[in-house]
Structure formats: C-alpha cells, structure tokens
C-alpha cells in the first residue's frame, strides 16, 4: 500500500503540489497554511509533487519505481556508424 507523507516543518505552503497533482491528493489547510495529504488512495505515484516541492518535504513509500534506461557503451559504439 502506497504511503505519502508531507514533512510538516518543511512545508512552506507554496501549494505547488496542489497545482501539479493530477488526481487531487492534496488539500491546503488554511489554519496551518500548509498542504496536507487528503486522499492517498488517489495517488498514482507519478512523483511530480516530490520533484516539484522546493523544500523536498514530500516522501513516498511502497510504490513501483520505474528506472530510466541506462547507456550501454558496447551498443552505442555499434550505433555510432549510423549517426
């Protein structure tokens, strides 16, 4: 089960996470002037909120991590002749 947390002391209340989240997982707490997780079940683990947060206050746990392709030197050298 995916977990998402916002470090309360780190959040500056900029609301960038609210803007970027495509599934509206966050709400802005007017009282504390900080964002908080409202519907974690809606999170698709795109990690856009974690990347955009200027304070790096958002953390995800237990999600499927997609790894970018790596560069293989041997294959690259073979492809070079086409470039």
């Amino acid at each position: 089960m995916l977990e998402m947390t916002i470090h309360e002391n780190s959040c500056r209340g900029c609301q960038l996470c609210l803007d970027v989240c495509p599934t509206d997982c966050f709400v802005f707490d007017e009282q504390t002037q900080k964002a908080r997780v409202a519907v974690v079940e809606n999170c698709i683990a795109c990690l856009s909120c974690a990347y955009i947060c200027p304070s790096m206050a958002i953390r995800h746990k237990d999600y499927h991590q997609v790894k970018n392709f790596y560069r293989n030197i041997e294959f690259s050298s073979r492809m070079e002749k086409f470039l």
Partner: protein
Amino acid sequence: MDEILKKRRTLQETMNFMAALSAGIEPILGRGANSMTMSAGRNLGRKFSAGAKPTQDLMEAIDEVRNILVANNCLWGFEPFKPQQQNDFITSTPEGDQQLLLVFRDCMIRQALLRFGHLQQGSLCNMMYGFFAGALESIMGRKTTLEIKHAGENSCLKLLTVKK
C-alpha cells in the same frame, strides 16, 4: 538469461536512439512530427490487433490490448484508474462517449526520454495515442483518442475516450 539481457540492452539502446531522433525532428517538422508518429502508432496497433477478439466491452477491449502488447514483447504496462470520488472505472460524456482513465507506469518511451533529458508529451508519446486508436479501432470498431492528462516522472495519467 544472457539472451534476455542482450534483448533488453538492445531495446534500451534502440529506444534511446529513437528518443534522440524524435527530439531532433520535432523542431524541424513541427506539428507534422506528431501526426507522423501517431500514424505509425495506429498502423502498429492495427497490425498487432489483426487477430484480436472483437468486443464492445471497453474493459475487455483494454485487457485485449494489454495481451497484444505482452504477446509482442512491448514494455508498456498500464492499468485502469478510478479516483476515489468516482463510482465506476468507465464514465460517459453527455455526447455518449465512454471515458476511462489509464495509468502508465513502465513505459519504454518515458524511460528513454528521461535518460537523456528529453521533454515528455512529444511525438513519441503520440505514438502511444496512435497505438490505442489503431488497436481499439480493430477490436471495438470505434474511434478512440488517448489524451495525456499528466506526464509524470514515474507514471503518466491518460484519458481514453471511445467515441459513440
């Protein structure tokens, strides 16, 4: 195991090469690049789904598309998504079109694009739109669009619309 590793390396390098090519042609061809890749994707979708089981059930059709991708060794994992506030996976528009949200996690296009810092939502992503349009046209016999709602670093959210 060696064979799988070799195939994987080849796929990864080919996709990196494709990403570089698409990033290179986009500034030259402009919006034409999108229609080219969309058309290529649609042809691929039609070709792969030639022997697929026809159905009018959208969820069944989506499963069929998934089977087609697996059968053809395509690294394009996706799953239907339902926000908590929504009752069903499939919703209908006032015009009678069916809509379904899809989450794409393992996507060979994104994995290649981000490897070299290329932008998402470009012409290669449009190929996916074309693929779904082609495959669902064969399976359901209806026009389909796949709109990118959000392109994230780890997964993407897309809206599949099947026309009435």
